[in-house]
């Protein structure tokens, strides 16, 4: 414990060892080099394996690259990607709103929580493929089929986490808010939401990933456009290089989303957390 400050400039010495900047950079460089080596090795194995198989079973990396450049140049590429992305985001956004609101309500009322618990279990046990079949029956070949499947996959995850999260809210903080005569709405936004946010964030990330994956299954069954439809067409025509090209596109998009949106957002939202937890 450090002494009580005499001058405002007194440094905060928390007793934790300070990282050496040079060592951290060296380690990062080494890791980057290792990752690059892994990529090269995987490409090499892929190349060698493709030599012993016909292209419709395993196309070579070069062939996939060519298929990908043609794919990106094709007029429907961005449209398909956009339409799929829109369905995922809509389904996910609806799931997040519904999950947070209902999760908070169920967390706030024990009676409601106990009453609705079986419904949640029921929804989680039904497979996404079954939801896709129901969606096809109910919504036909429309955007809503995919949106519904994404929603039914992502929503229970978010709802459960938020609901559980309400139980981790520190009663002392709620009492503190009461001594300041805060309104119920203020307690919800100033104590409950910040407590739940880290949990919500990790579950939302998981839910988005699940949603994105099942959206393709839903599209192959119940859509006339989108990435899922193109994948199915390519598979039906034995255009395996096309399947690979789409797959790589999706992987690249998910990685970009993680690195450009989620990681910076997480760092900004949770900079109050101890460094030890983050590393």
């Amino acid at each position, binding site marked *: 414990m*450090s002494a009580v*400050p005499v001058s405002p400039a007194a440094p905060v010495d928390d007793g934790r060892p300070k990282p050496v900047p040079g060592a951290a950079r060296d380690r990062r460089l080494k890791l980057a080099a290792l990752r690059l080596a892994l990529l090269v090795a995987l490409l090499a194995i892929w190349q060698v394996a493709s030599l012993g198989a016909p292209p419709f079973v395993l196309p070579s990396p070069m062939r996939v690259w060519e298929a990908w450049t043609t794919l990106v140049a094709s007029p429907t590429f961005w449209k398909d990607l956009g339409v799929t992305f829109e369905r995922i985001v809509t389904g996910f956004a609806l799931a997040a709103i519904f999950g947070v609101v209902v999760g908070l309500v169920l967390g706030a009322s024990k009676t409601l929580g106990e009453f609705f618990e079986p419904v949640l279990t029921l929804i989680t046990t039904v497979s996404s493929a079954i939801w896709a079949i129901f969606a096809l029956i109910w919504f036909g070949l429309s955007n809503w089929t995919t949106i519904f499947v994404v929603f039914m996959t992502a929503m229970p995850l978010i709802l459960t986490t938020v609901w559980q999260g309400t139980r981790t809210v520190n009663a002392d903080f709620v009492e*503190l808010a009461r001594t300041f005569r805060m309104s119920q709405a203020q307690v919800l936004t100033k104590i409950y939401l910040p407590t739940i946010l880290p949990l919500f964030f990790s579950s939302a990330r998981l839910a988005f990933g699940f949603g994105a994956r099942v959206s393709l299954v839903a599209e192959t069954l119940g859509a006339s456009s989108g990435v899922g439809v193109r994948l199915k067409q390519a598979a039906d025509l034995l255009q395996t290089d096309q399947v690979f090209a789409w797959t790589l596109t999706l992987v690249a998009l998910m990685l970009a989303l993680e690195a450009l949106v989620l990681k910076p957002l997480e760092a900004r939202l949770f900079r*109050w957390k101890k460094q030890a937890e983050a590393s």
Partner: protein
Amino acid sequence: MSVVKVQSVSKWFPRRDGESLHVLQNIDLDVPEKAIVAIVGASGCGKSTLLNIIAGLVTPDRGCVFLNGVKASAFEDWRSLTYMFQEDRLLPWRTATQNVAFGLEAAGVARPERRERVTETLALVGLSGFADAYPHELSGGMRSRVALARSLVTRPQILLMDEPFSKLDPSIRTQMHDEVLRIKELMGMTIVFVTHDVEEAVVLADKVVVLNPRPGRVRETQEIRLPYPRDPLSPDVAEQARLLRRSL
């Protein structure tokens, strides 16, 4: 006129076996304006419950509380009263500044004025250099200062303190006592201070009320007439403490 007046207050808590636990019995307490009154007692004597009753968080089963001469049930100016807890209860996701501002957010103070008053209050407790630090970056003493600033930022007339320094090192606790006395002199609020530490009560208070447990009742009320500042190690303080300890 007394700022806080507790009149024959009794309180029972329901127990799990259906019986009820008698927590407070016929408590009378009178806190004059700008006084520091310490409530001393062993654990389980109901001193925190008494503080919660004064704060309006718990309603008494019998008797009543008057704040500024107004019956608690009709009292409206609750924001002129703040409460400092045994734990600092700093919100870990807020910086020192944001934690102090918490008290003003409930009162609906506009943002520019909020910032000004928070800066002013942080300076008052000697934490100007740590405005943007998160709680986990602060030492126990500093966290305690942030919590103190949070209960001062609304410029309360009544400050209720429930063993706020009991978890601090003795030397830092003494510093906090000096701070409380200095700030009280400056702002002129009335303080009700709950503690199990008799020396702490003697160093701070004009008047010490000793509670006995099961059910909690007033055993003794003692005026402390020693001049401030009081040295916790002086013979006068030791003698007062010895006298009070006999009734514990």
